């Protein structure tokens, strides 16, 4: 019985006088003026972008190309950010998110693949820039599909919504599989357009072609840079939304939908917005997929992948848009880290066998995480959405002052 009480009271215990490392970092960061934030953020991003060039010894994957893994991480990071809008911010559990990913990828495929009956690259889309032109179209199509799915289903709640979206994801995949005259069915669509830039005698199809295997600036590196740029744009967009009226409405819906409705939040409208924005970001990631792989086929878009995306969000920490990016990194990177590795720090391992067990480990991780840290590894903290910085500056000053005056740090000081 005693253990039970501890377990129950632990989360609601008063905030400890000395904050955790994560919270300290958060408070410090939030209190920094904007220029300082940029000053630290830009070199950090540059460092991230340089990863595929630096290829740090242990970090670099052995069974597969590091740049390629990072490019895949880029797609998953976008998916995680998008799914986080739906699941983490608005609290709508979506198990069919892969459907939007598929719609984005297939829109580009249908517009630019020579196998498709709707191929436009011979008419008004130039082969060189077809991918870039198809990008906004694909995002629009996915947004509309989000609207189509959301309008009838968003009146459902909780588990029911989860199952309906699961059904939707499967229906999208099955349609791609069954409508053989359009999507090629199981044969998929190949030869999808990608940006033809930087053609040289050694890189005959340009830097973005899968044929560009010249290290370190191979195709993976270039696609990773594209996805990094897109991630930054999307993060700025989502971050601003989060701090706006829309973001506040989402939080209200997530916490208590009935209360939000009574307080005058048009919940249906904002849920639909969340769905639509989430869908568009998923579609964007699908566009990246189509361009990078230059081939789409239905098995890529099965339910298991939907669950993996959800894993990324849950592991990273729902609602924390930077956390979910780390979640995506873990999901993509870890199996690839072990792939083809025969020893780790001198200990002989069978990397392929470990990589084989990835779903087992993901499953175990999800279960343990839900028991011991349901908020994820990098949980979101409730914070003031307006006038945030001013408050943090004051709070930090107060905390520092309190710490300086009272080294033993009693509870009042911290509060």
């Amino acid at each position, binding site marked *: 019985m005693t253990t039970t009480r501890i377990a129950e009271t632990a989360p609601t215990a008063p905030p400890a006088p000395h904050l955790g490392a994560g919270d300290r970092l958060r408070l410090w960061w939030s209190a920094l003026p904007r220029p300082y934030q940029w000053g630290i953020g830009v070199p950090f991003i540059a460092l991230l972008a340089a990863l595929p060039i630096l290829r740090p010894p242990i970090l670099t994957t052995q069974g597969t190309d590091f740049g390629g893994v990072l490019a895949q991480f880029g797609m998953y990071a976008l998916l995680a950010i998008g799914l986080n809008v739906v699941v983490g911010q608005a609290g709508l559990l979506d198990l069919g998110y892969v459907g939007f990913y598929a719609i984005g990828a297939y829109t580009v495929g249908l517009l630019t693949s020579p196998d498709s009956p709707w191929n436009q690259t011979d008419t008004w889309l130039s082969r060189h820039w077809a991918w870039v032109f198809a990008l906004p179209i694909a995002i629009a199509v996915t947004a509309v599909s989000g609207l189509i799915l959301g309008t009838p289903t968003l009146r459902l709640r909780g588990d029911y919504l989860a199952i309906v979206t699961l059904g939707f994801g499967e229906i999208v995949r099955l349609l791609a599989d069954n409508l053989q005259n359009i999507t090629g069915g*199981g044969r998929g669509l190949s030869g999808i357009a990608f940006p033809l830039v930087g053609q040289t005698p050694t890189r005959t199809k340009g830097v973005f072609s*899968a044929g560009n295997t010249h290290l370190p600036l191979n195709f993976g590196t270039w696609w990773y840079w594209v996805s990094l740029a897109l991630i930054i744009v999307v993060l700025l967009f989502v971050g601003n939304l989060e701090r706006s009226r829309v973001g506040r409405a989402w939080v209200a819906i997530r916490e208590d939908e009935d209360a939000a409705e009574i307080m005058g939040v048009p919940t249906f409208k904002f849920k639909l917005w969340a769905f639509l924005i989430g869908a568009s970001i998923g579609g964007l990631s699908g566009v990246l997929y189509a361009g990078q792989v230059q081939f789409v086929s239905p098995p*890529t878009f099965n339910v298991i992948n939907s669950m993996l995306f959800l894993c990324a969000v849950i592991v990273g920490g729902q609602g924390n848009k930077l956390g979910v990016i780390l979640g995506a990194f873990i999901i993509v990177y870890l199996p690839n880290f072990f792939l083809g590795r025969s020893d780790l720090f001198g200990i002989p391992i069978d990397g392929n066998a470990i990589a084989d067990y990835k779903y087992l480990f993901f499953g175990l991780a999800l279960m343990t995480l839900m028991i011991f840290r349901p908020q994820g590894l990098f949980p979101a903290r409730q914070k003031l959405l307006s006038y945030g910085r001013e408050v943090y500056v004051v709070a930090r000053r107060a905390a520092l002052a309190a710490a300086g005056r009272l080294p033993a740090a009693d509870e009042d000081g911290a509060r």
Partner: protein
Amino acid sequence: MRSSTPRLAGVALVTIAGLVLVGCSSKAPSASSTGTSGALTIQPLVQIDKAGKEVKSQAGGTAANPAGDGKATCASTTTIAMAGALTGANAALGINIANGVKLAIKQHNDANKDCQVQFKGFDTEGDPAKAPAVATQIINDANVIGLIGPAFSGETKATGAAFHDAGLLSLTASATNPALTTNGWNNFFRGLANDAVQGPSVAAYMVNTAGFKKVCVVKDDSDYGVGLAQQITTGLGSAADASCALSVKTGDKDFSSAVQSIKSAAPDAIFYSGYYAEAAPFVAQLRTGGVTATFVSADGTNDPQFVKQAGSASKGALLSCPCGPAPADFEKAYEAAFNVSSGVYSVEAYDLATIVLKAIDGGAKDRASVVNFVKGYSGDGLARHYQWDSTGELSSALIWIYQVK
């Protein structure tokens, strides 16, 4: 309350332990059971050409032996890579191929003390999305002198250009999509007949030799199944009955509705274009549903698992394959090395790896000379005679028809 938790967890543990125990204790009867189902095996029936006519398999030629003369010398870093699905849902085929390659290399290394060739398996999970990154890794591994793979057509499509640009030999033991050799990749060779050969040959055999008047073509939703079904349907011409042409899904285990449609169509034969995992329950349900028409399928089904799974329902099924029958010696060596029986494409992989090993033994030290060696190669393997035309297709691609007897 707390005390009951371990008790119940204990119950669960005991159950799992029970499952395990059962598995262990029943080892003996299941080993003997291979004897009972061993009554039915896939046996070579006839070798056919594109018109469906019988071709006597050439006698006289002795298959190339990876061991060679035992005097070869090469750098100890020389590596043969294999790319394909080694983990995940599609791993069975990839592992068959990897094992075939490993066996050839092992036999070579045992005989040649001064030429220890390394093997490196690269896992693509059969996923075209992951294959390009793996290809980059292979290409940038300077020790890799030749590649057996990629295994599937989809990933070959996604990576072919990269291997071509790198001039790395890409010798596939299993990718049968006809379009792969039309890209001008002069480093790409196919060690077996493609679907455009297999389809018409088998169709001609069904119509001309077996005399089927009405055939229901059933396909799964894989790249392979769809492509082959198209070739077969064209080849069958008027014998293919469009009204009972059905599609099923990879992973399906219940085919009641398809059985009903086929029953009411009453065909002479059913051609299943797909893999054994679905073909086995399908044929079993056809038989219990009272359909007695001949069951015909291709290399995706030509696997010992098909007979094991379908049991007596598989009796009389005709299975084509661009692969030759595995000789008894090979099978014995394979089972001794890997503790499983060889599967589809193991023999091809072994043959193709042997050819690359011959190139290495012959003094090839870089990628270009290996490609050149293969281009000019002509010789017998365990499965067939290997010689390639300018596009990388086998110059004489014959199909074997097997029957479950």
